[in-house]
């Protein structure tokens, strides 16, 4: 029992010291606020950085537009137009253009997902 608790505690405390986020060859350093894809450094606006950070923290999961608006802009509402899509496409221009494979995927009718595999 004690061993189980200790194991659980170890597992919980591990992500707390996480300073780097990785998806495929995309790497984000949360301390220096630098983003790299493969060997190339990528220059991001503060809002784009937060958008990417939110997506990478939910890597492999589908993130809806409402979730993004709440997590990145701190406003809770349902955007009528494709206002979020434009931000995503700008981010996609910076992290996916000229690289292979694409990491930022659109999930039709749901939202977006960042993941490394095909």
């Amino acid at each position, binding site marked *: 029992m004690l061993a189980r608790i200790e194991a659980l505690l170890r597992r919980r405390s591990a992500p707390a010291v996480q300073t780097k986020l990785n998806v495929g060859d995309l790497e984000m350093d949360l301390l220096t606020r630098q983003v790299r894809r493969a060997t190339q450094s990528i220059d991001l606006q503060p809002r784009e950085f937060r958008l990417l950070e939110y997506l990478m923290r939910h890597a492999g999961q589908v993130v809806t537009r409402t979730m993004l608006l709440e997590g990145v802009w701190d406003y809770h509402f*349902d955007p*009528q137009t*494709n*206002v979020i899509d*434009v931000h995503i496409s700008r981010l996609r221009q910076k992290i996916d253009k000229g690289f292979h494979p694409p990491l930022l995927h659109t999930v039709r*009718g749901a939202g977006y997902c960042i993941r490394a595999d095909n």
Partner: protein
Amino acid sequence: MRITKFLRTTAFRLALIYAGIFSLSVILLFAFIFWTTSVLVDRQRQQAIVADMNDLRDEFTSLGPSGLLDSVIDRSRPDRVGNGVYLLAKPDFTPMAGNLSAWPKAPARQGLWITFPIEARRFGDSQGERSIAEALEANLPGGYHVLVGQNTAPQRRMQSATIQALFWSLAAMVCLGLAGGLLLSRNMIRRIEAINRSAERIMHGEVMHRMPVGQSNDEFDRLSVNLNLMLEEIERLVGGIRAVTDNIAHDLRSPLTRLKSRLEIAMNAADDPIERRAAIEQAIQEADQLLATFGALLSIADAEAGARRADMTTVELSGVVQDVVELYRPLAEERGANLDLNIHGLTRAQGNRQLLFQAVANLIDNAVKYGEGGHNTLHQELYGEIFFPMQLVLFLNEPEKDYTGGEFVLTQQIPRAQSKAIVLKPRGGDMLLFTTNFRPVKGTRGFYRARMRHGVSEVHTGNRHTLGIIFHDALT
């Protein structure tokens, strides 16, 4: 009406309790009067006896035994004696004069006073009456005995008369109390029953029925007035719900119809995967639109219920506007528009940050949307408890020069027929005033009201700028 119904009313019970308390207080009052008068009468009688005895002693002293004898004979004459009891006796207690046949044997003693039973005969009565006499006795020089007293019967008669009076007045009071209680409860039942009957009629579907209100403005009338006000408030709220339901039905009917037709297209296009996929995508878009409409309706309902009032805080408006501009700038740039923001000074307000953001976002969203391909579906702005009968649109730029397409479209519902479309193309600087809900239309038998909807057709090129003014109830 049955008597038991009265007996069960609160008014009757109150009247009964009141009569009970009143009777108790009357009994106490009578007891007090009874006691004090008894004491008073006792004392007066004893004083009279003492005075009489002193008179006889004086007679004896001044006139001797024969004088006393005359006096006693004189006082005990049947036409004079009244309630008096006299006896003069020899030393061996043989009566000499007086209205007693013998000296009382073993009388009850209390101090100087003796009491003994007598059979007194009132003047003119043939039969005697058994009674109790109270008397003083004295031994005079020469061995004579004298006894002076009074019959207590009159006093007892007075007492019993008093008790009888008490009994009868109590009986009368209880009867009057019961009658008053019945009367009061009958009146109360009549008023309450009227209200109950009205309530039952309303419960059985006569929702327009109201409680009867009298002229007197008493508590029952006030109760009726308040109940009527409550019913009106309920009716107004139900009416509001009905209006909102109507609007939801109207707003959802056309997207649902489109969704259905898209799905039908998808079903029929089973052979062509590309066409099918396109139809399904369009169906999903319609479903998204429906969800968005639902979201908006829910937040309007929330705002009207006052649920969001708790979220009111001090909000920096410039910060909110900056956030909106920052969110929408890429979209605007993509559509070839510029978003410039000029903020002068700090602007703080009490409000809900989220709703303010959404309001400004909707404004900019609309502004950005009316570029190429933008349109506004046919609708009515009828949300809220109060909506104004008209709306205003100011046209800020010139059609055919700054933009093409983007006509202002009105549809007029014609009963039992298809809707009629009215397309307007005001010039830049024009103002359009149109009705929100209905418009009077002249028919063969006078005017009837036609339901109106409005919208904007697709903008083909350029950017269309207008300022729409919707009057809205700001208090909810």
